[in-house]
């Protein structure tokens, strides 16, 4: 087996990502997203477990309107992201079952950090109504004021907390 390819130039990849985002504006009338796919799945799970509870919940109820939580645009987009990431890694010989972590942390701790960090991001994304893709990228390029507030706050939060988890990465 040959070695994995080198990663693309970050500016070139960024320009490509910008063109994908622009294509989303033009052909879909909206930008990219990720956290919305998690939100609509959560709404779908709650609705399956307890339809009355889901309908009474103001956060989940909006995902249940229309064609229902499993017919949400972002869910199809995220399915594409998973397929696209897989195909890119396949052709670049980067498919590998592994737990990626810093040198000073065990795999078990890394998985716990991943789950915990993911959960905190989930809370933040609900409050902010989006994440790095749906709010920062999509709204940032459309000059949404809230998107820029979110982006600056997210970088500030990450830099402020980075020293406390340095052991996990350095």
């Amino acid at each position, binding site marked *: 087996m040959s070695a994995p390819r080198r*990663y693309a130039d*970050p500016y070139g*990849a*960024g*320009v490509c*990502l*910008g*063109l*994908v985002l*622009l294509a989303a504006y033009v052909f*879909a*009338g909206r930008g990219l997203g990720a*956290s919305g*796919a*998690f939100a609509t799945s959560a709404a779908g799970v709650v609705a399956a477990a307890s339809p009355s509870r889901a309908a009474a919940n103001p956060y*989940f109820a909006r995902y249940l309107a229309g064609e229902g939580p499993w017919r949400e645009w972002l869910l*199809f*987009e*995220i399915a594409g992201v*998973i*397929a*696209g*990431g*897989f195909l*890119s890694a396949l052709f670049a010989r*980067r498919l*590998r079952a592994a737990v*990626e972590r810093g040198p000073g942390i065990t795999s078990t701790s890394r998985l716990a*950090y*991943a*789950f915990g*960090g*993911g*959960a*905190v*991001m*989930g809370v933040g*994304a*609900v*409050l*902010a*109504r989006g*994440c*790095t*893709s749906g*709010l920062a*990228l999509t709204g940032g390029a*459309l*000059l*949404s004021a*809230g998107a820029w507030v979110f982006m*600056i*706050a*997210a970088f*500030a*939060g*990450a830099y402020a*907390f*980075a020293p406390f988890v340095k052991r*996990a990465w350095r």
Partner: protein
Amino acid sequence: MNPFAIAVVIGIAFGWTLERAGLGSAPKLAGQFYLTDLTVFKVMFSAIVTAMLGAFWLSRLGILDLSQVYIPETFLGPQLAGGLLFGVGFVVAGLCPGTSCVAAATGRGDGVMVMLGMFSGVLVTGLAFAPLRNFYESTARGSLTLTQLLRVPYGVVVCGIVAMALIAFQFAERLEKRA
């Protein structure tokens, strides 16, 4: 064309680009917050500048009607607080929601755990939404843009952000050389 087919095609291009840039690898993303690898910043800001210039010129040329594009709405307080929390979660997880899907798709167990954590966080916050609702709906500013906020023409804001990005890219290169 079916909107779901468009969603899948755009998603594939999105996931492909993130993976090519190396953004399916958590230690690489975390490098952003220790100033050793500024790929996250470079990719994000070249993407924002590209899409921003594209949207600006396509609307000037009459090809794209910006009133038909959904602009994420502004809720200052929740987006400030949510952003801070999101950032804390990001540096602990090493991946954001979109990149966790790419990491998981390429076989990374940590990517799967970030996805599960993200799902749990959204689920629990959604279930416990009632006491949060007042804050969630507070400081609503609708589809406020920087153009309206700063009261300067669209083109001036666009030029300002391009200039800021070009300066920031220079800094990023210097920081990486030092690291």
